[in-house]
């Protein structure tokens, strides 16, 4: 009888002891898995699980080790004075990083204002405007832009962009403006790639409906597609923000690195990331501990960005 044949349960191996040998020669071997096979499958499954947990362990280890080296500064100065103090003068015992936080935010917001429209525009171009030929040219260019090392961006900013800025606006060319331009270009590939995915995942039927109502291409993009892809684009911008605030090597070369709130957008300034590069070679004692404290702050900021992306996606799912 056919119903006496157990289903070949390969995905979920039956426990060897409970296996029943099927009646009739036709079913011989179908459900029987030797103990060795079963054990091997279980061992492998757990090995894979362990590998997957390496990511979790990685985050925990970073937090533990950086926290272990940086925690004493919180205990000594106090979290409030460390985060809220405006004076960063570590050699004289002033460990306030508020100026650095503000400067990091200034750099990031400016880069977003310049870079996000550029990136979303490029994404719209790739997904809606460009023909297949042009797209095959532009998309690799955007991907290569993501591949250029940040130190090369910094070098490029230092030797080409900085002198131009100095000539046009006066001064030395170090400062917020130069950083904004460099960071804006650096975050374009991140934002463009994810925004393009979001635009592409809008069903074609919606575009056709819009055109059928007599809307132009631009009206379709502005009133239909961008609102529909809103969640994905917000995710992309938050990710770009994370990239900008954590960027170090490109910023350190064009920021000028003075630990004050910059006096205008062409004056030198220091951020959370660049203070580490500048001070690490000579820092000792509490100063060094404070730099690890800055790293903890950066780590927590980047975790907040990741968490808010999750939150936005979840809200988007609930609303949509």
């Amino acid at each position, binding site marked *: 009888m056919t119903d006496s044949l157990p289903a070949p349960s390969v995905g979920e*191996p039956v426990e060897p002891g409970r296996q029943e040998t099927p009646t009739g020669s036709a079913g011989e071997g179908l459900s029987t898995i030797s103990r060795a096979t079963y054990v091997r499958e279980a061992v492998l499954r757990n090995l894979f699980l362990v590998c997957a947990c390496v990511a979790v362990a990685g*985050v925990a280890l970073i937090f533990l*080790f950086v926290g272990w080296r940086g925690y004493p500064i919180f205990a000594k100065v106090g979290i409030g004075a460390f985060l809220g103090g405006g004076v960063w003068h570590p050699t004289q015992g002033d460990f306030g990083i508020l100026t650095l936080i503000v400067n990091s935010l200034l750099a990031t917001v400016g880069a977003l204002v310049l870079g996000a429209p550029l990136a979303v525009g490029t994404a719209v171009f790739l997904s809606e405007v460009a023909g297949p030929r042009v797209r095959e040219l532009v998309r690799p260019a*955007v991907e*290569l832009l993501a591949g250029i090392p940040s*130190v*090369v961006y910094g*070098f490029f900013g230092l030797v080409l962009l900085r002198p131009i800025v100095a000539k046009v606006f006066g001064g030395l060319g170090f400062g917020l403006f130069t950083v904004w331009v460099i960071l804006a270009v650096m975050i374009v590939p991140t934002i463009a790639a994810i925004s393009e995915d979001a635009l592409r995942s809008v069903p074609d039927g919606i575009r056709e409906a819009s055109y059928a109502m007599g809307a132009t291409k631009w009206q379709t993009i502005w009133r239909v597609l961008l609102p529909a892809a809103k969640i994905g684009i917000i995710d992309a911008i938050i990710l770009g923000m994370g990239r900008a605030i954590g960027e170090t090597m490109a910023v350190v070369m064009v920021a000028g690195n003075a630990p004050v709130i910059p006096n205008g957008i062409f004056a030198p300034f220091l951020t959370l990331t660049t203070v580490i590069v500048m001070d690490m070679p000579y820092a000792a004692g509490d100063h060094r501990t404070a730099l690890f404290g800055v790293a903890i702050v*950066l*780590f927590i900021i980047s975790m907040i960005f990741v968490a808010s992306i999750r939150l936005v996606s979840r809200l988007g799912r609930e609303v949509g």
Partner: protein
Amino acid sequence: MQSRERISKTLTNTLALGVIWLAAIVTVGALGTILLYIIVNGIGQLTPAFIFGWPHGVNMEGGIWPTIQSTLYVTTLAMLITTPVAILAAVYLAEYAVQGRLVSTIRFAADSLASVPSIVMGLFGLAAFVEGIGMGFSVIAAALALSFLMLPIVMRTTEEAIRAVPKYIRWGSYGLGATKWQTVSRIVLPSATPRIVTGVILSAGRAAGETAVVIYTMGTMINAPVLPTQPGRVMPVHLMLLAQEGINLPAAFGTALLLVLMVLGFNLTARYIVRRSNKGMQR
């Protein structure tokens, strides 16, 4: 009235599409400007004496071979450490895992790891491997720190590659009586290989261009490391130091060009592999 509305509608459309074209042109133009500027200024440097020579003097005249060797060494080592762990982790997420708290924790951790600023990763490497375990500035310490950076990239691309393998291929394998591991190892992973290789190469390109992680784990000493316990100076660190001193700019341009060529080489290889495998699938 109606015709005026239509004119304004078409005009807005044309203008707006023009702005979108402009955005794309600026993006491509930025890449073009950077590449062209580095190539024009660096191409004269690329002589065998520069590539294979050793630097000497206070201004680092001569070649940059030790930095090339250090870069290739640490990247390869990091790749060897990351790849097996990342692939097996992706196999778990794509084939074995059931949606739940554990999986969402793993994904959150991978996303967090991917967005940790590289300077934080550098200080972590310094605290954990260089000083914590006592490896000192060394290739292995840098490779370990870099592998945390590469892990989420390889994990994500591998998981996508595995998910892109059609379900019916798996059913065929199960139908023949294969176990889960047999199906994964002999059917799924081989068909996902091109895209997995692409992910590994892209992450290696990222590691080869990384400065902030490596400077705190491998140091800045000019050295051609042979053993993984030796220190060295990678190309991005060399470029940063040359640029900051600003005395030997020709060498800086040469290093920048070689670095860009190396990283673009990784990227183009990855693209080539994907394209070839796509063609194979269409046939």
